[in-house]
């Protein structure tokens, strides 16, 4: 029974990745749509990370952009200033993001901070990161940002190749997510999400598993942040700001469904379409994000996956 289930999950996963892999064939000629498709994958990967951190262990990290950005900036700045290979600096960036996320999680679990205080602390960190990047002008070029064209790995230079590179990251993160959830840690996450106190009393090391989730999620955020830095050819504080990352990821995850394997993918795809629809409206998009977020939080808290499960009566991972 269990084995069949896992097999079904893998089939679903393979199908999703196959569909995503076919996207460039459909839109390959248009640079604009290739960029949109790649961006969609980036946000899907962010959402998978946030799903692990928030969806499963209820740690409201409002510093997703800051974590991704710290990795991106660490990697880019080291590559430029020390002339290191990006293959070396990307892991360093990822490690710094993972370390930061792990420390936040450890400290907040140890101090017994409620979900709201974790939110505030990480929000404050977001602001600190934003101001640090603005202020450390010699390193980061402040608001102007840094050109990263030609710096990164060769694979991130052409549009189709970078699409597949990011897709590889997404696929790997989904597989990792699946493996994580079927392992011991997955059961622990489930118990923590249901009732933290009961989980603690049942002998689950809540601190360890929360820190584990935060570290893995942050490492994934860092990976995507660094890859994005080289892919986009340009980074600035705005690229990693609260509006451009955290809000979008929150909406994506809520839309797709928290705590599900395919929620981030579905949410990301729907959001990408939606975003393109409102793009002609110009600056209206912030308004749309805000309204969408309120509507989702209030009426649609379980997301698309849960809705599809109900309507189609099939098991969706």
């Amino acid at each position: 029974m269990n084995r069949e289930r896992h097999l079904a999950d893998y089939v679903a996963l393979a199908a999703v990745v196959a569909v995503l892999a076919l996207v460039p064939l459909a839109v390959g000629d248009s640079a604009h749509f290739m960029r949109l498709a790649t961006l969609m994958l980036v946000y899907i990967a962010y959402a998978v990370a946030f799903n692990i951190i928030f969806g499963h262990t209820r740690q409201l990290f409002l510093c997703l952009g800051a974590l991704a950005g710290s990795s991106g900036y660490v990697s880019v700045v080291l590559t430029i200033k020390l002339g290191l290979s990006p293959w070396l600096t990307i892991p360093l960036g990822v490690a710094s993001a993972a370390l930061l996320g792990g420390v936040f999680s450890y400290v907040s679990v140890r101090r017994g901070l409620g979900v709201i205080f974790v939110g505030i602390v990480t929000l404050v960190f977001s602001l600190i990161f934003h101001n640090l990047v603005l202020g450390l002008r010699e390193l980061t070029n402040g608001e102007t940002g840094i050109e990263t064209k030609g710096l990164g790995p060769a694979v991130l230079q052409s549009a189709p190749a970078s699409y597949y590179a990011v897709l590889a990251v997404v696929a790997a993160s989904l597989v990792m997510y699946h493996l994580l959830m079927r392992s011991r840690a997955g059961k622990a996450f489930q118990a923590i999400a249901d009732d933290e106190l009961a989980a603690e009393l049942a002998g689950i090391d809540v601190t360890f598993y929360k820190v584990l989730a935060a570290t893995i999620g942050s490492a994934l955020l860092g990976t995507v942040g660094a890859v994005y830095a080289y892919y986009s050819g340009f980074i600035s504080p705005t690229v990693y700001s609260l509006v451009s990352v955290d809000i979008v990821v929150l909406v994506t995850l809520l839309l797709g469904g928290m705590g599900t394997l395919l929620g981030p993918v579905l949410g990301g795809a729907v959001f990408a379409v939606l975003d393109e629809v409102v793009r002609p409206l110009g600056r209206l998009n912030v308004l749309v994000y805000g309204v969408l977020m309120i509507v989702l939080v209030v009426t649609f808290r379980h997301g698309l996956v849960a809705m599809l499960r109900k309507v189609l009566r099939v098991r969706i991972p």
Partner: protein
Amino acid sequence: MIAILLDGIVQGLQLSLMAVGITLIFGLGGVLNLAHGQFAVVGGIATALFVGEGLHPLAACVLGVLTAGLFGLVVDRTLLVPAYRCAGEERLLLGLLITLGLSFAVNGFLDLRYADVALTLRLPTPSYELGGVTVRSASIVAALIALGAFALLFAFLKGTLLGKVIRSIIQNEVGAGLCGINPGRIRTLIVVLSAMLAGLGGIAQGLFSSVGTEMGNELTSFALIVAVVGGVRSINGTLAAGVLLGIVNAFASYLVGAYMTLLILLATAAFTILLRPQGLFAYRT
């Protein structure tokens, strides 16, 4: 030196005016309002629009405060209702996400409709000479506004029956309900009151700089820092924290520059949460 100190105190009072609303709504409604700065901006922009209509500035300010209050009323009666239906952690989370969404919606809307509207209030005499120190009249007016508002607030909370009711809910919502108090109505009152205080803060800010649509997030973060450092359930603490951070802000801006100051303030907030989650001055509400 004295000028900087005075400046800091005035700034601090301003900050407290903004932050006390967050404290009240959190203490009473169990919702951390991340759209508080937007309430202030709504008040400021409304005032600017009324002034643009040719109203007397004072009347425009009163209407601006009322507009902020009205906005608070609408938000409380519509958007926050789903949050109030939940309890405990769930309510906190829902309230946080709703108000975060609201802050972006308001930002987006104001940016779209009123991008070029900003409030700047100019007083007839720019400065006075007080005991050898030149004081901007804007500072005096802002300080008087904040002190007046706080005096009224304290008189209301300590001196009236309704104030006692409010304090009882902050202490224990269930207990207050058992005594025949309807927390929902009081909550609405508090949200409206807080929104009006925020609007007042936004208008007072217009004495120093122009209040435009982009100020919302900045005001929210400052108010949040002050509320957190003061202890998000303590009104006295919020006032004290506001003045303290205002003074720190003024001296740090003078000594190490605006950029480092912001980092110092943010770090203070972060460390307060980590070391004393109940706030620096939290011993009574």
